[in-house]
């Protein structure tokens, strides 16, 4: 910070930083870069079918999520399994 800025007192957050944070949010959710006929919805549907073929769970207990970052993107499949007894019955 230059001495001139020092006398002007503490600066409010720079508008450029607000812009950066807003854009980071938009891009991180991944919805922006994908357009319309993206493969993700189809992949989710297929993954869901596969999971349900092997484990007898309520479809609402299967969560499929994706997160896109600058360096790393992840696909997470989270299945909340029922107690052991019920799984056996499903086979």
């Amino acid at each position, binding site marked *: 910070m230059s001495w001139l800025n020092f006398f002007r007192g503490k600066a409010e957050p720079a508008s450029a930083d607000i812009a950066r944070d*807003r854009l980071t949010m938009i*891009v991180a959710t991944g919805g922006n870069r994908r357009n319309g006929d993206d493969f993700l919805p189809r992949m989710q549907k297929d993954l869901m079918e596969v999971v349900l073929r092997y484990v007898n769970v309520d479809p609402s207990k299967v969560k499929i999520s994706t997160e896109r970052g600058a360096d790393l993107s992840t696909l997470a499949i989270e299945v909340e399994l029922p107690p052991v007894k019920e799984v056996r019955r499903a086979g």
Partner: protein
Amino acid sequence: MAQVVTVTSGKGGVGKTTSSAAFSTGLAQRGKKVVVIDFDVGLRNLDLIMGVERRVVFDIVNVIQGEARLNQALIRDKRVETLAILPASQTRDKDALNKEGVAKIIEELSKEFDYIICDSPAGIEKGALLALYFADSAIVVTNPEVSSVRDSDRILGVIQSKSKRAEDNREPVREHLLVTRYDPIRVAKGEMLKLEDVQAILAVPLLGVIPESEAVLKASNAGTPVILDAETSAAQAYADAVSRFLGEDKPMRFVEAEKKGIFGRLFGGRAA
């Protein structure tokens, strides 16, 4: 086989045509055989920026519809020998272009040229899709400003899903980020997005940074690609981008605010 390079952005008015003209002229100055195609059918501009508007007789639509041969429509540049321009039509509507027609033109141009530069229209509709469909590389022109960055992110997604390379499951289109109209003084004041931030958000290799420059408007007034005004910062920044595209290592220039002298610091601290 020629390399097809599409200059695109999503958002309009960010400097695609300016960059297409400068970049193709720069490549040709380096001895490459280059043709630059205006895909902005109905709103052609490239001919004006290149200063060849009075030499346009036939255009890309005439060629596609079989009304003229490709060689009759190509305009050979008088300043740089290995450069040619294929203008867009001013009168027809966008539907006059189609994949098959463009494919044929690109195939024929590939026989003579090393690089085919496609100046895309704005948007993500038909014209822009056609301009990027055959791309081997894409130069995504971005201004340091929220809507331009978001649209660049958007068009990057389109490139990776709608290009021929994506359809054929080939190696993806090589992406390059070109940040234009960058104003280091406004960045230093916190009014404009930093280069590092734009780059981190889009996560695409940086080809160059073109500073905001009065030389661009002047060059367009005169119909001279700005890269030919060699002493200007914009020209030098474009020349550096061309070098990087050809694989040379060049440090980024014109990205830091000039240090003010003692008088500037005493009296210019509050400068608008």
